[in-house]
């Protein structure tokens, strides 16, 4: 064979192999589909053959999943003709994927082939797939006795799920499984081929099987296992008997009661006695009817705390009132190891337990008192109120908390005084609960709560106010009365309470406000209350009060303030008019309110006033308009467009009005101060003439004026780009002059505070001054530059780089410490030790810096 032929043969073989693999793979992929098509539409013989092949490939379950019902039906009927154990096993497995009627069909088949299906079902019961296991139990129960012998060897298997299924299946089989299960229960030690763990597993599985069995399990437990000499066998039997009897309906559990009482009273093993007590507790009325209560009460004196606890728990479950007194006595005398159970039992007994428990609230041990209080609280019936009221005065916080928590939803007028007293408790949980309880009590609590409003203890008054506010409507009239007759403190809290009540309080409070016969204090309090309601329906009476010339000043003043709190646009005119009120206090309050008032056409009205000839009105309007200016509203609000420039028109007039106030030494001080502050927002370099005289040590307005000059300076000089020379405005020059000339520390501070507000503007002049002059002044310069902050960082670094004098460089370093931003601190950290800022100078500058910050 030549080389060419050999190559051709080789390639042909390779291609043939690859092709075969591809064809085989394609066939295997399509095979199941083809077999399913045969099942769906093929004749009977083909269907049987298709199912046989699926079984052989162990793909029956996989193939039937999600298939139409007729495919499932026909596959199952074909499988019944095959009838091998493997087919049966796969039918059990397929139960998890087929429709319910088909599952029933499979079950019918498996239970109609005699013993043949037991093996496959038992194998399915041990399958690793839970879905497969789940399909085996039902048919095995139906098959019954013949399956027992195959299930018993599985009773100690390691797998919990399999063991659980075996137990429930044996239980479902019932009578035929009793004897073999009894043998397991009676076994006292592991068998020859059985380890201790398997022995324990078998025991617990047998117990579970008996429990699942129900009524048929009772007789073997009573006759065969309860009299057994081994206490562990008796213990298990007691548990099974209790569980089985408890699950039976009506009187089914009656036969179990006597044997259980016998175990409870006579068994030597405390574990059996305990189990018997628990079992009796689970029997409920059946146990009560059959006389289990007295034996259980007797066991409350058992030497073992575990038995006492179980007896207590059982008595609670039975709920017989006769057990209340013995349980309470046990709590007082011998509660160790059973406290929780006693408490739980008493709770379950309920109301009859309250009287026997009440003496426990006086027990010297706080723990006993706490258990008693908690138990009574949990019982929570009407009879619990008085004992809980008493517990509110307990010295132990937890007792008081438990009582207060319970009374929150339980209290009535019998404990009113205790609750009022509890408002002054030191524990928040107690006084908040008392507040809630009083609020829930409603009208009966109102007089006592009104009394508490006048308490010297602010928290008591506050709690009372909150309680009254929550009571709402019924508390309004008494609170209105209290506004007129209470102490000043009580009036104040009454007003707050009325405000918190809201709408319901508006009408009566308005009536009082406008009542000329009422006292001024009461009417003013009514105005405050109306303001606190925030209700727009209070606007009208408040406006009337402001406009009423007969109303006392105090009333009008409070009405103006209340209008400010409500913020109703309708009040705008009234507030603006109030700037011309005859009373100074009212005018001042109106001005205060208007400074923050942005509603309606307020600026329009103020400008109208500004244009008038009435000097006092013009001045006040000017101050308010200055506060409404864009500069006063802040940069951020301007940036988001939340504020419009309202005083653009007529701002010149505002400024000149303000300057006239500033220069008018006869004007009231507060007005002058307001005007000075206003100039910070609307003033310009021309305003400096009015302000300059105030920058003296003798002026009481020096600090305010300096800040205003700083504000003007910062506002009137346009910011510069980086690298561009910073212009120094007249305002800065003025303050620098004041600083240079100042001899007093106070005046220097005043000038420094103004300079600190100007940003980069005074930085270069200050650095120039640092080059020369006495050391003492350099501390001031470092502090002022530090107060200026970030705008000074680069210039200081630059100056330090250029400076040759070591001392000057050190002062620059001190300045950087004062500035304290990240860049400055980086440089300080990198400085060699000998160039670090002098600590003494740092201390001195920091002292000045602190004083500057106070002014700012």
């Amino acid at each position, binding site marked *: 064979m030549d080389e060419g032929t050999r190559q051709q043969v080789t390639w042909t073989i390779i291609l043939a192999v690859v092709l075969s693999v591809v064809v085989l793979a394609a066939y295997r992929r399509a095979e199941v589909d083809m077999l399913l098509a045969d099942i769906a539409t093929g004749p009977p013989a083909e269907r049987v053959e298709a199912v046989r092949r699926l079984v052989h490939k162990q793909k029956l379950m996989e193939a039937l999943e999600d298939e139409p019902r007729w495919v499932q039906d026909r596959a199952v009927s074909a499988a019944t003709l095959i*009838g*091998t154990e493997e087919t049966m096993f796969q039918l059990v497995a397929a139960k998890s994927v087929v429709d319910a*009627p088909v599952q029933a069909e499979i079950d019918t088949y498996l239970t109609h082939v005699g013993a043949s299906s037991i093996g496959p079902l038992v194998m399915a019961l041990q399958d690793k797939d839970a879905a497969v296991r789940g399909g085996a139990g039902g048919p095995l129960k139906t098959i019954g006795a013949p399956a027992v*012998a195959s299930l018993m060897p599985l009773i100690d298997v390691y797998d919990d799920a399999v063991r659980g299924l075996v137990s429930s299946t044996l239980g479902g089989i019932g009578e035929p499984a009793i004897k073999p299960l009894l043998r397991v229960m009676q076994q006292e030690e592991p068998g020859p081929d059985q380890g201790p763990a398997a022995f324990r597993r078998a025991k617990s599985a047998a117990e579970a099987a008996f429990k699942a069995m129900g009524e048929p399990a009772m007789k073997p437990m009573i006759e065969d296992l309860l009299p057994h000499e081994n206490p562990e066998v008796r213990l298990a039997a007691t548990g099974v008997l209790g569980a089985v009897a408890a699950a039976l309906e009506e009187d089914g559990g009656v036969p179990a009661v006597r044997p259980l009482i016998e175990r409870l009273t006579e068994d030597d093993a405390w574990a059996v006695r305990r189990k018997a007590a628990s079992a009796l507790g689970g029997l409920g009325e059946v146990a009560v009817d059959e006389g289990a209560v007295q034996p259980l009460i007797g066991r409350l004196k058992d030497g073992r705390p575990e038995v006492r606890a179980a007896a207590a728990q059982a008595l609670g479950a039975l709920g017989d009132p006769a057990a209340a007194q013995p349980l309470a006595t046990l709590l007082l005398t011998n509660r160790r190891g059973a406290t929780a159970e006693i408490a739980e039992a008493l709770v379950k007994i309920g109301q009859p337990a309250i009287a026997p428990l009440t003496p426990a609230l006086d027990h010297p041990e706080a723990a006993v008192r706490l258990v008693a209080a908690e138990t009574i609280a949990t019982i929570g019936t009407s009879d619990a109120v008085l004992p809980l009221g008493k517990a509110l005065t307990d010295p132990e916080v937890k007792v008081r908390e438990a009582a207060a928590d319970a009374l929150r939803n339980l209290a009535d007028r019998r404990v009113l005084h205790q609750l009022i007293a509890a408002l002054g408790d030191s524990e928040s949980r107690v006084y908040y609960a008392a507040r809630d309880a009083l609020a829930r009590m409603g009208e009966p609590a109102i007089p006592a709560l009104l009394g508490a409003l006048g308490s010297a203890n602010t928290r008591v008054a506050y709690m009372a106010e909150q309680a009254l506010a929550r009571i709402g409507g019924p508390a309004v009239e008494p609170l209105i009365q209290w506004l007129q007759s209470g102490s000043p403190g009580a009036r104040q809290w009454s007003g707050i309470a009325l405000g918190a009540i809201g709408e319901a309080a508006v009408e009566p409070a308005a009536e009082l406000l406008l009542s000329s016969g009422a006292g001024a204090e009461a009417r003013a309090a009514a105005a405050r209350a109306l303001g606190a309601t925030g209700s727009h329906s209070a606007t009208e009476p408040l406006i009337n009060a402001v406009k009423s010339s007969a109303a006392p000043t105090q009333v009008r003043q409070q009405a103006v303030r209340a209008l400010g709190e409500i913020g109703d646009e309708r009040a705008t005119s009234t507030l603006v008019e109030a700037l011309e009120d005859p009373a100074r206090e009212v005018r001042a309050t109106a001005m205060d309110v208007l400074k923050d008032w942005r509603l309606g056409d307020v600026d329009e009205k103020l400008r109208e006033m500004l244009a008038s000839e009435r000097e006092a009105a013009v001045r006040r309007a000017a101050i308010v308009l200055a506060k409404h200016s864009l500069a006063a509203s802040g940069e951020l609000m301007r940036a988001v467009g939340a504020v419009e420039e309202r005083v653009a028109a007529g701002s010149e007039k505002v400024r000149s009005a303000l300057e006239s106030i500033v220069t008018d030494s006869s004007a009231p001080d507060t007005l002058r101060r307001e005007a000075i502050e206003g100039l910070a927002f609307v003033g310009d370099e021309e305003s400096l003439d009015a302000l300059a005289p105030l920058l003296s040590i003798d002026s009481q307005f020096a600090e305010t004026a300096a800040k205003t000059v700083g504000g003007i300076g910062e506002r009137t000089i346009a910011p510069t780009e980086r690298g561009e020379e910073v212009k120094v405005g007249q305002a800065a020059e003025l303050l620098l002059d004041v600083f240079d000339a100042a001899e007093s520390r106070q005046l220097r501070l005043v000038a420094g505070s103004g300079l600190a507000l100007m940003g980069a503007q005074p930085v270069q002049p200050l650095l120039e001054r640092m080059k020369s002059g006495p050391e003492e002044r350099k501390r001031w310069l470092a502090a002022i530059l530090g107060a200026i902050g970030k705008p000074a960082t680069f210039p200081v670094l630059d100056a330090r780089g250029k400076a040759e004098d070591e001392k000057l460089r050190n002062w620059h370093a001190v300045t950087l410490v004062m500035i304290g931003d990240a860049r400055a601190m980086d440089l300080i950290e990198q400085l060699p030790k000998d160039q670090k800022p002098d600590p003494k100078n740092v201390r001195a500058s920091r002292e000045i810096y602190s004083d500057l910050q106070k002014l700012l």
Partner: protein
Amino acid sequence: MTVNRRTVTLIIIVVIVVGGVYGITLWQRARETQQMLSDLMSRDHGVATKAMTGLRDRTGAVSDNLISYLDRGHDDVRWRAAMLLGAVNTRASREALIDALRDPSPDVRLNAALSLGHLGATKTAARIAMLAADAGEPVAVRTAAVRALELLRAGEQMATVVEILEDRPPVPEPEEETEEEAETEGTAEAEEPAEEEEEEEPVDETAPLREEAARALARIAPVAPAAAGEEGSASEASPILRAADILRDSVDPEVEPSDVVRQAACYALSDLAEATADDEVQARAVKALIFALDDEIGDVRIAAAHALRLLRPPTELAERVGDAFDRAVNDSHYWVRHAARKAVEGG
């Protein structure tokens, strides 16, 4: 050809090793077989089932053991042996299985009948039919016997199968409200009804048997001799036509009370129709299935819809079939709608 000594030695060693391995394998297999035969006698069905699965591949080798077990083992061993002998098609095993049809254990009789069916022992059909017809036998045994007849396609036993299928309990009377009851309803007397114990419906124990008979009838009627048909008219002499009529009755809820049987009868009708080209059979099957499409039980309607889809309806019935599918498209049961849609779309 000269072969040197080293080569010869090597060949001898290879032969010895291969022979040794083969011998050991045989020995191990024999031990395994013995173990499985031993497990076959276990009272634990789980252990025995594993052994049976293993022995299925070597039934030829253990047929003598199985035949002997069938004769003298305990009940469980005997039925297991009977089941396994269903894979041993020898005269001895067939004879042993025929004897086992009289075994006192119903499990043995059941498996013997089924195994004879698997072996195709047609000569035993009459014996098996007797077992199927014996009302004294447990239903499980009779059902297995019918399965065996189905596997044997024992046409001559059609009468037995028909008899089983038609031996059904009466259809329960529909619960009707009497006038007297209607009058008392809502009155004071009605609030305190006389305590009447509700009569429990008798359990239809033979339903699985009739279900199997319906399936079997579809398979054996096509091969049944004409004599097996009812005597009388010529048309009714055809066993397949008679089977169609019997199955038609079996889908009628007024005749057949069990929905399981009605469902099986629907599927059986399609099997029957598929086995013949006779238009009359097709027509009867189609009419019966259209009728079954109105059954109150959804599972029966599913079977009817699917079966109807598989038939070739005569031209004169095509319209009725179309109407029936149009109605079924709106059925309350998903699978009925699914089948109807497939039929309408030609899927």
